[in-house]
């Protein structure tokens, strides 16, 4: 099973990071979550304080907890994407694709090319702003029936898709 690629191939067997603008994208997503969740929690705290006749210090603790959650979410939004980025890698070769991800629980997912059923290249509204795309690889597996690789420049995502999709040597194959 040799590769059919002619031009400088994406299947160079080297580890690649995601596109650095993915960090900005994740930050934006994080801050959107922050902007929705934090005011909602504050309203929740306020209603609890007004409705239930709790002692003042319990309300104070609730407020402190709210501030803690807010700081945590802000940290997640601002700092976490860069940390996650550091551990997110992918590698393509003639046989298929390896994806490494996870900061605390580290995972390596290896999908052989011959097991790829079909591939989606997805672009959400925020991804479009950053000209990024997510590659969704579908296999006949159970737990890993769908494997996602986010943060790719759109053109590169399409190139990877073309590389991974079964070529002519599989035409006679009866796998769906």
């Amino acid at each position, binding site marked *: *099973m040799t590769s059919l690629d002619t031009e400088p191939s994406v299947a160079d067997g080297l580890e690649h990071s995601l596109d650095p603008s993915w960090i900005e994208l994740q930050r934006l997503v994080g801050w959107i979550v922050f902007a929705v969740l934090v005011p909602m929690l504050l309203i929740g705290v306020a209603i609890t304080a007004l409705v239930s006749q709790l002692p003042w210090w319990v309300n104070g603790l609730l407020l402190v907890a709210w501030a803690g959650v807010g700081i945590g979410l802000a940290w997640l939004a601002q700092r976490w994407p860069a940390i996650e980025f550091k551990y997110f890698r992918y590698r393509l070769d003639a*046989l*298929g694709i*390896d994806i490494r991800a*996870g900061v*605390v*629980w*580290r*995972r*390596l*997912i*290896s*999908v*052989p*090319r*011959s*097991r790829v059923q079909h591939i989606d290249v997805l672009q959400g509204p925020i991804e479009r702003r950053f000209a990024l795309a997510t590659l969704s690889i579908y*296999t*006949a*597996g*159970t*737990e*890993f029936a769908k*494997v996602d690789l986010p943060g790719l420049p759109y053109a590169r995502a399409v190139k990877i898709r073309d590389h991974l999709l079964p070529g002519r040597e*599989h035409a*006679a*194959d*009866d*796998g*769906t």
Partner: protein
Amino acid sequence: MPPTTGPERRLHPSSFVFSMGRHLKALLVPGAAVIFTAGSSGRDWEVWLMGLLIPYAAAALARSLSFRYRFDGEEMVVRKGWIFRSERHIPYARIQNIDAVQNVFHRLLRVAEVRVETASGGEPEATMTVLPEDALEEMRRFVFAGRQAGAAPVAAGDDAAAAPAAPAAAADVLLRLSPREVLLYGFIESRGAIVMAGGAGLLWEFGVFDRIFASMNDGELVQRGLLRQIVRGTLGQGGVSPRIVLQTLAGFLVLLLVLRVLSMAWAFFRLHGFTLRRAGEDLRVDYGLLTRISGTIPLQRIQTLTVSDSPLHRLFGRVSVHVDTAGGDGGEAKPTKREPIAPLIASRDIDGLIGSLLPTVALTGDIRWERVHPRASRRAFIRTAVVATIGSLFLLFILRWWALAAVPILYAWAAIYALKYVANLGWSIVGDGIVFKSGWLWRRMTVARFAKIQVVTRAASPFDRRTGMASVKVDTAGAANAEHAVEIPFLPSETASTLTATLYAHAAQTAFRW
């Protein structure tokens, strides 16, 4: 596409009755409930029950009269529907299995309900209620012949088995269970809980329990909080008296015994005359005393194979063998899970059976088991010790000082379990597949062929990384209701990396054919 178009075939004339019967069964329990409860107050229930039947009958009639199927060159074509018509093309090469069910009435008329399944999961691709027995045989012939023709040009590196098959060889029996073996299976497996739960559900439906509880409590109706009340009542008097403990234990033992006996009866009806045959490249399974079930599984469709045993299995020198196909044995579609391919087989015959199911896997004789990380037992003990701690706290809470006797036992168990569990972990590359075994008292061993591996993953938790370990998992098709999967914990970090790379490379070099 299809070079030939076969003549169209219809269902058996009695189809409409069976099709209706299936819906009637759904009405049976509520119907009976109506009979029991409304029995005294007039008989108008009959009227609305009959009213419900008319649309059912019309729909069933339309469904079975409009159903047509034919065998083309490479595919089976199913046309159905009267107002909304559908035509479904099912290539022979995609068919995972053909199952047939015959209850007593089916057998009287020599017909069968047939399900054709592909890898799409969930519902069967086509359900035929009902076909004459010889039409079923004909279908098997066509599908089998069609697959042979379709498979020939695909000289893929995968299933060497699929190519040079003996032309529909006379079926050779791989396993036949005598009534004694069937009863033994029932005893070992203890499926009595199924019978018990079914019976309990039925009684609950009729409100029998409420009446029993009411009579036990001087007419005062206790509802579902009975257990809680018993617990509260006994705990309220400062702990549990030994007499109650003994009584509970005795009751528990009797219950276990009853469950085993029920299980044997269940096995006798369900698995009577269990026969596993190999016809060319297909497996045929037939079983059942009243309801005969007959399944066909192409050998090539076996995704993983699992051999399991328990202390009782070992006492009698037997093991059970399950196979996973990617066929749609989806939870809801079928009332019970697919039965094992070999419910019970003598341990010494297992090599022969695996040899004929997976000829390319060198699983016979001695396997050179690779071990996990030397410090794995310590990791395993931490896990079991956490369980033991939670158990001890719970016991302390319930039994107070009595628990102090139980706590050392719990921790000893945790230590022994961890040691034994790790000692029984093992993996090995055998021929064109990987085999993984685990379990101390209940042992499982699973084989996955490279050609059926979809995705390989290597994972490392923070605990793994601190101790230089990682786990490797193999994902296959249709593994959702698998008994046991190849998921190897506590591997040395480098071993995990090389194993992942090896499996990935092997899988990539084979073409996957469902």
